[in-house]
């Protein structure tokens, strides 16, 4: 499903090279739930964005269903991203002045699907994410937990195989964090492949099958 091979990423400031990711190897099977665990600055966000095709590596491979996403021309990379990957960010990244319903519709606009199909998909993912009752509210008026659920609905609307979450509970209270984990469990039972970057200890003892991958200083200790 997702295969990361000898992946390295460096940033350059003038002549100084700082190595953010060093020779990462990671193989994620279909339906697996991966917890990328590491302190702030260990390179989790960088790794996630390369996996999702938002950033490019300095060397090495990322294969999504055998397609080298980090090498493809933009039109192909964004197609894969739109079809196969749903993303949930720490700061939710919603359009604050659009309604919940509109926010969730956005990813389907370029799909060219008939309107009826779009409405059906949006309704379905609003229900799965448990935010259907707030669908006509403007995003700026939502609480943190509700924003999170709106972001989940948006990530699910195109029915992606892979869900990528970056620090999903960093802005949630513990009750909403537990609710979030419940939703993740449902997605896991639906067969989605899930990658979560977090340093939240709540993810250490999940009541469903998951694999913790510790990250430290741009390396994965396995």
């Amino acid at each position, binding site marked *: 499903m997702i295969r990361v091979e000898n992946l390295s990423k460096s940033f350059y400031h003038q002549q100084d090279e700082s190595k953010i990711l060093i020779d990462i190897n990671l193989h994620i099977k279909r339906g697996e739930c991966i917890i990328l665990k590491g302190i702030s600055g260990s390179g989790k966000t960088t790794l996630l964005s390369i996996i999702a095709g938002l950033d*490019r590596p300095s*060397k090495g491979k990322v294969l999504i269903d055998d397609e080298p996403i980090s090498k493809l*021309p933009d039109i192909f990379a964004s197609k894969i991203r739109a079809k196969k990957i749903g993303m949930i960010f720490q700061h939710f990244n919603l359009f604050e002045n659009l309604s919940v319903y509109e926010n969730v519709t956005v990813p389907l606009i370029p799909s060219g699907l008939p309107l009826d199909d779009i409405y059906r998909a949006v309704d379905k993912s609003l229900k799965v994410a448990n935010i259907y009752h707030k669908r006509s509210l403007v995003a700026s008026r939502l609480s943190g937990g509700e924003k999170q659920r709106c972001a989940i609905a948006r990530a699910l609307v195109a029915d992606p195989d892979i869900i990528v979450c970056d620090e999903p509970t960093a802005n949630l209270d513990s009750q909403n964090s537990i609710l979030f984990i419940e939703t993740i469990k449902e997605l896991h039972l639906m067969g989605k492949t899930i990658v979560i970057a977090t340093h939240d200890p709540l993810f250490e003892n999940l009541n469903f099958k998951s694999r913790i991958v510790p990250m430290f200083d741009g390396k994965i200790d396995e």
Partner: protein
Amino acid sequence: MNEILFSNQVIIYLLSESLLFVLLFIAFVVSIKIVIKWDFDSFSQKQFRLEKEAYLVSTITIFLFIIKFILLIYFVFTIDSLSILIAGAMCGAGVVTANEYGTYLLLFKLIIIATLILWFYLNSYDTHTKNYLHMKKKSLLFIAIFISIIFELFLDFQYFTNIDTHQPVSCCSTLFGQLEGANPLPFGLTIPLLLTLFYLLYFLTILTLKTNYRVLYIVSNLLFLYLAYYAVVYFFGTYIYQLPTHKCPFCMLQSDYFYIGYIIWGSLFLGTFIGISDALSSIWTTRKYIKNSRLVISMLTLFVVLSSIYVIIYYFRNGVWL
């Protein structure tokens, strides 16, 4: 002579061309690297860096195309406006032929625009393959464009430094007027024959474009371009000027004729260049169909209709042909 070189238009023009050249040089170096080292199947640091730089080249070339296109129009405009400085020149025709470089320079500019459009199509076909199948071809084409531009820049400076404003030049009336009955048309054509071929080739071009006989289309469109030039100068133009003796490709660029020349020549050249680039690159990349046949048909049709309409209007107004 420095009156020309230091006129505002020429300074702006030459400065823009020279500045552009700096960017081009960067893209040129990368293109050479690509031709030598590109290996898409490699996941090494070098290859990733090269892919990033290739992206830079694309961006520079797209920028280059936009600027070159504007500069070509500006060049024509400059030439036209310089005619007041040169003794005997009444329009661009006199300025272009003020020394031996002008005509070549103008032709060169047209060829460069055509090649850039070809690059554009190749690029667009390239980014629609998953592995940049045509990257090396594209880079080779860019290198060719770069070399042409060096030559063009040389011609630019040669041309503008070698115009003598005091030396009277001959302008359209002598350049394009019939010299002692000699036939200026190619292949010994007469005007009625030229017009017949003009319209026949127009239809052949459009038909072949639609049916995807691409080589036939390219030949037909090139021939059409060639004959259309003569048809406009020696026939349609006389109706634009409403003077049977005035034969000139440049005067119609002036405000007296509502700048119609820009649209007439623009639609002819762009239509042809876009069509041929599309066809050539689709052959080169072994694609089945060309992409923008509708755009090409509209442009060529605009050209034909616009040229013809002057003749028809003249006839309805005056009840006679020129």
